[in-house]
């Protein structure tokens, strides 16, 4: 709780100083034989309309999802134990499940997700999940 309050009341104000790497959440569907489908980016870019100048609930939700993934990576890198025990990891499991819902087939047994750091040189794995059931 103390960390949550510190996060809220001690802003850094360092906005948008690094644009060259982004954290990307990808997912795949696991089939009965244990194979994984192709990895796909899970968070679609929000669409933009003029009304979004003042009212942008879905765009802000997308940004909150990105923040959640970034925070999970930060917490996983700081954690000494299994990242799967983190609250943020469990939230991302639900996020990935929701984003992959359209890819769910009766033949699939579950899904996996991974987080990659994307920059001009390409993608590098930051975190790879185990298989999670639907």
């Amino acid at each position, binding site marked *: 709780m103390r960390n949550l*309050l510190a996060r*809220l009341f001690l802003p850094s104000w360092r906005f948008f100083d690094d644009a060259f790497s982004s954290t990307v959440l990808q997912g795949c569907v696991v089939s009965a034989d244990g194979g994984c489908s192709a990895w796909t980016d899970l968070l679609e870019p929000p669409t933009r309309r003029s009304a979004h100048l003042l009212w942008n609930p879905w765009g802000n939700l997308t940004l909150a999802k990105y923040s959640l993934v970034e925070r999970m990576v930060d917490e996983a890198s700081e954690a000494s134990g299994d990242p799967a025990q983190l*609250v943020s990891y469990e939230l991302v499991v639900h996020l990935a499940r929701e984003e992959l819902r359209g890819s769910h087939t009766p033949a699939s047994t579950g899904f996996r997700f991974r987080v990659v750091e994307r920059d001009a040189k390409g993608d590098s794995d930051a975190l790879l999940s185990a298989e999670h059931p639907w």
Partner: protein
Amino acid sequence: MSTELQQIIRLTQLLAGVAVVVGTLELLVVRRAWSDVGIWRWSVLRREMSALGVLLGQRSFTAMLLVRLAAGVALIAGVGAVAPLVAWVTSLLVNLRFRGTYNGGSDHMLMIALTALVITSAGAHSEVVVKAAVVWIGVQSILSYAIAGVAKLVHRSWRNGEAMRAFAGLRAYGAPALASKALGNPAVARYAAWSVLLFECGFPAVLLGPRVAVVFITMAVVFHMVNAGVLGLNRFLLTWAATWPAVWHVATLTGAR
């Protein structure tokens, strides 16, 4: 208390109220995301904040958002002495529900504005206390621009414009194709980047006085509207707008009229 200071506080209340109302309505629209079947479900979050279950479980969180909405409306209308405190408490709880903040910097700045409004409300009998609270909002706002500007200035990619192009390409923001195409031109990207750098790093010049402050606040309106239009950061526009009256007040204290 001077009429001018009263007007500054009233305007801050009004603008902070708009930010509270819009932010709350946006959360109600996306309620599935924090419901019992959503991403930020209470069954997971309670592991680290079980003591707040009475307030942050799905049903109570919905009720709490409605209370926050009412507090925001009261701030806009300028009624209810406890409105700033209710808005502050409910905003704090919303941020805790999302493990810190929901939308980063805009939530930080809204908490700063609301904290100051609580102080102005509680310490209304003391002009010194009220003035200090308003100055605190103004200083935080000035610092937010200056620190963000300097943090960018040290990066070569900002100085040569590449960072602008990179931001327009980030999936999280979904920048319009027109903006991405324009920033694909190195000269346009460099011009845009230096516009941001000069505006943000130069913002402390508001301390020279109200006339300079009006110029920079006008630029801030344009800056935040472009950010909202291109990057979808509407909450930054609404929240920082609530700080501009205080910035102007600070300028009247530090500079020549």
